[in-house]
């Protein structure tokens, strides 16, 4: 069961390991990212940040989709982590369970505008966000669980 789907370009870090994981009783962190899945160094680093007693899975986006749609994943309380709006779109197209997406952190880059303290989006991102909204998926901004939810549609 997916307890939270989060976009965070630092993937597993303090907010994830130290606030979200305990607050939601997560027992499995699933990082869905094609690049990281092939990068041993990144995998090693993420493994260090894994909170004790929690399983860490690092899969490519297609593999993550397969795993999430497999019955094996049903017994876990999953925090699904991606680092881009694009990846979350791919996941939500294939995994019906994703009905709400948490925007945790997307750093500013060339051509991106800041819509919230820790969130910057490009025009391409905005187009995807509108599509997700059209599908009726909840898109909320919170860095840590005790923040108040801000809805993306009010920030664009």
């Amino acid at each position: 069961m997916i307890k939270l789907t989060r976009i965070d370009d630092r993937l597993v870090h303090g907010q994830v390991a130290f606030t979200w994981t305990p607050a939601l009783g997560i027992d499995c962190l699933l990082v869905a990212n094609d690049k990281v899945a092939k990068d041993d160094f990144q995998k090693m680093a993420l493994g260090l940040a894994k909170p004790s007693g929690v399983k860490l899975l690092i899969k490519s986006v297609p593999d993550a989709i397969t795993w999430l749609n497999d019955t094996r994943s049903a017994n876990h309380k999953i925090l699904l982590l991606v680092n881009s709006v694009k990846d979350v779109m791919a996941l939500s197209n294939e995994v019906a369970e994703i009905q709400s997406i948490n925007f945790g952190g997307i750093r500013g880059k060339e051509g991106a505008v800041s819509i919230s303290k820790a969130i910057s989006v490009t025009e391409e991102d905005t187009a995807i966000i509108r599509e997700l909204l059209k599908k009726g998926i909840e898109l909320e901004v919170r860095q840590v669980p005790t923040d108040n939810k801000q809805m993306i549609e009010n920030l664009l």
Partner: protein
Amino acid sequence: MLLSFILITLIAVLGHSEDFLGTTLLSRPLVLGPLVGWVLGDLHLGIIIGGTLELIFMGNIKVGAAIPPDVITGGVLGTAFAILSGKGAAIALALAIPISILAEMLLSALFVSRSVFNKQFIAYAECGNYRGIQRLHILSGLLKPLLMGLITFLALQLGAGVMKSFLDSIPAWVNTGLQVAGNMLPALGFALLMNLMFNKRVAPYFFLGFMLAAYLKLPVIAIGGFGLIIALLVTQGKGSGAEEEEEDFEGEDGASAGAHGLDRPASKLNRRDIRRLFTRSLALEANFNFETWQNTGFAFAIIPALKKLYTTKDSMSKALKRHLQFFNTSPYGSTLILGITAAMEEQNSLDPDFDSESINAVKTGLMGPLAGVFDSLFWGTFKVIAAGVGTSLAIKGNILGAILFLLIFNVPHLLLRYNLTFTGYKAGTRFLQSLAKSHVMDKLTYGASILGLMVVGAMPATLISIRTPLSIGGRDSGVGLQGILDQIVPSIIPLGLTFLVYYFVKIHIKTTYLLLGLLVLGFVGSISHVFA
């Protein structure tokens, strides 16, 4: 009076300068409270107010861009107003909470607007002007202490008189109610901590801590000692980490990354240069902003090394631009990344074939995960123990509270931070790989959570006092309910209240509502003589 206002302003400035001083927690109310009390001639009250405020703001932690209420401004002003008008901790609390929430909004605005300097930083980097970058990092960093100092001073100068007559007009029953309500608020702090640390696996340790405190009346420091021993015993036993198979992790040797920072042919950086990475890392957060976060702090720290490694304008400019990219990690472990980065920069300067892209790849690859490790360790364990021990002494008016608080947190912090600089430089990423393979991190985080949670468990029993004056039976011949409770489970009321608030936190009730709810409960309980 003007002199004491100026001194109090300087205390606020000191608190806000913490970002230059290694995030050493000297900004906490536990530390600043006694300073304000001392300036105003009532050190004792300052200590108690500081301890009380610390309890309530205990669960407010700073991770990433999640900015908690500005307890520096709120705490300093609340303490000052309360002492100036001859009131106690309850009034300080009632003032500190709204002030810190207002001040937090101002700080957020500052962190947003600081981004305007980023263009100037890049312009300096373009022409290799590292001096410009250092200067702007410091100047922009000074904005926070100066701005908040100015606000503190204005609030004192303009508000002290009004505040006194306002506080004097508050009727006595409100004061009593506030006191009882104030005694309840720490439950919110504990509940927020539990929200981060409590789970089924480690729950017994929470109750162990509670029982040691409630029945055996052990002081928090002794419980911390027991916690440490138990954590060591539990993590030494084999298989205690309950490690699963980790199916998706097999077969990685990390050979591709093993080369970073090793086998250097010659070395341009000496011990002194590495030590400077550590000293400069203390100002990592000085220019925190919401666009690029700690980037200029990282550049500021590594500039002395870059100066030695790159002598041409072009190579310097490239290096500066590299380190002005987005960066954010836990300050407590930042030196590990600085050390690794310095080793890679050194290699880059020696070897023309070195892939300079890999420097940022390693930096950005490590900043998130290491923030996870060090934030948990420092906020979840060291800060909790330090605050537990510190507040338990401070609420009794003992100045040792503030001193032990700083020592318990900073002795391990600074030792680790200093040594990690050298570890990072010498062993590079290989150090991390051996950590990852040995599962030592898992044991460490598990042990740390046991230790932290035992201290949290002790808190409801030692740090809040909520008692009931109710009695069972007739008015005169009745038996005090509290006396009966004390014989069965001492501190059951604080424990119950903590769990009640924890439950509300779990079902996502907003912190502000919980705060108000506790205030109302305290007031009503006090007026109806259910609580005292």
